[in-house]
């Protein structure tokens, strides 16, 4: 049984001009101890998808399909069970570390908070002790335990947010673009800390990023999203080395090979704009920008086909397995 299994998840918002379909039938599994990367550009539904796992989607959202954590449907759970699920089973590393920390509480208090809420540590002094250990584990000096968020550097804050996510030793960590706001050096350090903790405690991780080079470092499997659907999914090596979908190809090609003059003179790019989130017409959503599109692409939407190691939703390239 997989830890998280999303089955044909659809999510829509009602708006004055008709429903906005943000997720359109997403099926994804996260096994125990596995790191799954989700790639895709802004507005394709990555964060919304992750939010459904802990039932954190906005209350106005209409959701259908199955969101199973440890075999139980999250949307059928009683409210108390949902609260127990949050952080104790699945925790989140948020994107903006400064903003996801309360400015008027010390970081020590904030790391202790989930332990005290969920009672994973029997006493406040033990929680304090554990919090201090966590701080050391993520590489923040213990003297900063009583510091306020604004007194830390950006990298330290992100480390604190990671310590917080580990506080209850969850089975799953959802990392939502955890390194986006950091410079490349700090990004590498923070990634290492996060990955070491996840691996050493045999946790699963859902890692959301628009940066394929980051995903290449951390993920066992990668799912590429476009316009609210998964268009390609497979092991990291398969997806990055043999991308099938034209969109994935464009993403992979966007990485310059250092020293290769061909890349310098012909930067890979995609023509056109990504579709407006929630408003997708008939046919493959990528067809208007696709260099390989055919007539059938504008008439029906391709489904995800292939082996467990590599699946793709494309009429043109998908057939040639």
């Amino acid at each position, binding site marked *: 049984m997989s830890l998280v299994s999303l089955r044909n998840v659809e999510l829509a918002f009602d708006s004055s001009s008709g429903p906005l379909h943000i997720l359109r039938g997403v099926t994804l599994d996260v096994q125990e101890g596995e790191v799954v990367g989700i790639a895709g550009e802004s507005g394709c539904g990555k964060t919304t998808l992750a939010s459904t796992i*802990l039932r*954190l989607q906005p209350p106005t959202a209409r959701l259908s399909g199955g969101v199973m954590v440890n075999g139980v449907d999250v949307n059928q759970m009683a409210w108390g069970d*949902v*609260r*127990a*699920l*949050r*952080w*104790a089973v699945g*925790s*989140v590393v*948020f994107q*903006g570390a400064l*903003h*996801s*920390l*309360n*400015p*008027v*509480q*010390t970081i020590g*208090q904030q790391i202790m*908070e*989930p332990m005290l*809420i*969920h009672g994973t540590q029997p006493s406040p002094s033990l929680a304090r002790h554990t919090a201090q250990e966590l701080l050391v584990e993520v590489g923040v000096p213990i*003297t*900063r335990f*009583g*510091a*306020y968020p*604004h*007194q830390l550097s950006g990298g330290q804050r992100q480390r604190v947010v990671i310590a*917080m996510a580990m506080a209850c030793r969850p089975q799953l960590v959802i990392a939502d673009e955890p390194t986006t706001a950091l410079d490349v050096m700090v990004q590498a350090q923070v990634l290492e800390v996060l990955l070491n903790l996840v691996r050493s405690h045999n946790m699963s991780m859902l890692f959301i990023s628009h940066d394929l080079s980051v995903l290449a470092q951390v993920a066992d499997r990668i799912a590429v999203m476009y316009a609210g659907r998964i268009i390609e999914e497979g092991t990291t090596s398969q997806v990055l080395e043999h991308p099938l979908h034209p969109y994935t190809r464009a993403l992979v090609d966007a990485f310059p090979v250092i020293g290769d003059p061909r890349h310098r003179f012909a930067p890979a790019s995609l023509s056109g704009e990504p579709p407006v989130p929630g408003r997708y017409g008939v046919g493959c959503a990528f067809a208007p920008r696709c260099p390989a599109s055919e007539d059938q692409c504008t008439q029906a939407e391709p489904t995800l086909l292939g082996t467990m190691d590599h699946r793709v939703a494309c009429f043109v390239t998908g057939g040639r397995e």
Partner: protein
Amino acid sequence: MTTLEFKAPSPAGGFRDGMRRLVRSRTALAGALVLVGFLVMALTAPLLFPESTLSVTRADGPPFSPPSLAYPLGTDEDGRSVLALVAWGARVSLLVGLGATAISMSLGTAIGIASGHYRGWIGAALDRVTDWFLVIPFLPLAIVLATVLGPSIWTITAVIGLTAWPGTARLVRAHTLSVSARPYLERSRALGARNAHQMIHHILPNVMPLVLANTTLAISIAILSETTLSFLGLGDPGSISWGSILDQGFQAGAISEGAWWYLGAPGICVVLVVLAFNLIGRSIEALLDPSTSDNP
């Protein structure tokens, strides 16, 4: 190698540190000195001016005598020392001011946070109740309540407290809405925190500076309201407050007698206390924000 000296971060309960900084700020110190002066005066009034000096029948001074050595603030129409009246009046005025503020601030903060945090029908209902209290004119409601409940210090405290909260609730609600939209509240929801936990541990500390700054304004308004209601004759006739001294002086013809000390002394006391609270309030607001506390 150059080492940068970082000051150790102040611990969460840096009370002594906070007091030190409060004292260092000139405006706060001035406000605090004035307040302490009035508090001492209020507390020692029974020792300095025995209750018998307030009795009209036992008053020994000449009526409407200007300030002199024997009567530093002059006397009233019955020959009582205005200084004694003002000292006794401080007790009631400060008590009513602080009591009414405690009521209105607790109500306003609780209702404001709840109406901002619960977005559904609970928030809407609380918001309508706030609106309703907001549009009722203060004086008529206070007059009606004071008449119905009967004049006493406690009535007047309750009346001011129960009519002064909607403004605070509005302010706190607006700030709660802005705090609720911040990612650390999303984090606390993702933590599995209950609503009560979110409100007490995340929203309240973030709206607290606003509440405290507003408290000092509210104390001023409460003292002024007490003065107003007493001046209109709705206070406790048996107790002396700054408002009732003004009322009495006005009715005894202090203006036509030219007894400036009679109306001036309680009036200036009201102004000084209000000023002192405002001065302290501004400093407390700056003090409570941890991001401004590193560099005093």
